[in-house]
């Protein structure tokens, strides 16, 4: 774990830069995290991020299929919002853990 200053706040992140305390997240922090990986957040991005945080709080595992079925954006659209790795990037910005396997 390391401390990192984002939007003027000290937050804890893991080795890969994912926030370890989801409750420390704020919209300003999200904007700062997005900027670091070259993404400018639009309204569509925010809708996805809010959906992810809500799902996370309900204990639902993050998957392309779930986001695709959310009615917010289809999977192709998600790839254009978060190019290269939509789940790992959207999770990073949403301040929730990266989708992972058991190893």
């Amino acid at each position: 774990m390391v401390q990192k200053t984002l939007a003027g706040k000290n937050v804890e992140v893991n080795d890969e830069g994912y926030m370890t305390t989801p409750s420390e997240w704020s919209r300003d922090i999200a904007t700062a995290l997005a900027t670091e990986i070259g993404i400018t957040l639009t309204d569509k991005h925010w809708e996805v991020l809010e959906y992810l945080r809500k799902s996370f709080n309900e204990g639902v595992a993050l998957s392309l299929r779930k986001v695709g079925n959310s009615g917010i954006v289809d999977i192709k659209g998600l790839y254009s919002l978060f190019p290269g790795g939509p789940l790992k990037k959207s999770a990073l910005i949403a301040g929730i853990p990266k989708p992972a396997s058991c190893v």
Partner: protein
Amino acid sequence: MKKLVILGAGSAGTMMANHLNKKLDKAEWSITIIDEYESHYYQPGFLFIPFGIYKAKDVVRSKHDFIPKGVEFILKRVKTIAAESNTITLASGETLPYDLLIIATGAKINPAETAGLDEGWYKDIFDFYTLEGAKALYERLKTWTGGKMVVHITELPIKCPVAPLEFSFLADSWLRKKGLRDKTELIYVTPLSGAFTKPTSSKALGYLLEEKGIKLVTDFGVMQVDAEKKKLISYDEIEVDYDLLVTIPTNMGDRMIEESGLGDDLNYVATDKNTLQSKAYPNVFVIGDATNIPASKAGSVAHFEAEILTENILLFLEGKPLKPDFDGHANCFIESGNGKALLIDFNYDVEPVFGTFPFPIIGPMQLLRESRLNHIGKMVFKWIYWNMLLRAIPIPLITAKMSRMGKKIK
């Protein structure tokens, strides 16, 4: 007489039938288990079939051999569950009432979820998650002379999440033995951000892919397969060519779950991750691959769940509060090729770490390190499965709740 009904006589259902047969008062309760197929498959063994290490006879037995006397076995398909009225309907049209229901209908591959897969199915595209697929792949590998061999995960969750990695490692060993490794490009394609995604495992095991020369394609969300041009195509239009595609298609719960209105978008039943009670109906419990809980879909998980679910069902019948004791414990051997394997032991909160198992320091099993002893463990697991796990005979020293002993937890 009250009725307890178990749907599915695979790993989890069979374990529950054996546990409950010993524990329930037979003057008060009858136990019925229902499955549509007569054959019981040792699914972990499917991994070895394409390489000729196991034959079909190693992995198939009759379900009748494992269901105890005193439990009624109905060999029919379950069509729907009407949980509001505590009844199930069979495909043959009969309706059965229940007082307590256990859903253990597992998960299976569904190739139809990916456009184009069916066109190359069992021609250049194979699975090893079914006996049929593993046998067809064995036949295909006999005529393999080299080219691009792609091992691919469509989406998660899948049964035994490490099986595709194990397949890749075994394929590497097999190709070397056949003198075909130089002529074969081995490529691992995953929707995740890496082959290993947990911090300790990534650091400890990343070398395996490099050492074996397995190429890695990550963050790959497959949109369709072009079976004619032999390409996987992703949502962001990246293409991966193959000569042989070994894919893990989307895994889903049985469609009966969907038709009963009990499933999520992959037909998994909403289940309390600590008590294994269904979230919608108190007298319905769910175990094994059929649940939506964030534990691995593995036989070892079903075994640990079965011990805790048995206790919880007895508490439920006495009207007492359930114990939130299931901690997501999984214990899995990972074949790493060349006669070696790894062992991981983890739960919801503790990722796979270094250490020894089951005892501190003396082990004898090493966690997260390759060893021949772990490989022997993996091979002995078949015997343990048929003779102990299914019959609900406890395995000495291995507890349902994960032990922290011997583990290097940060």
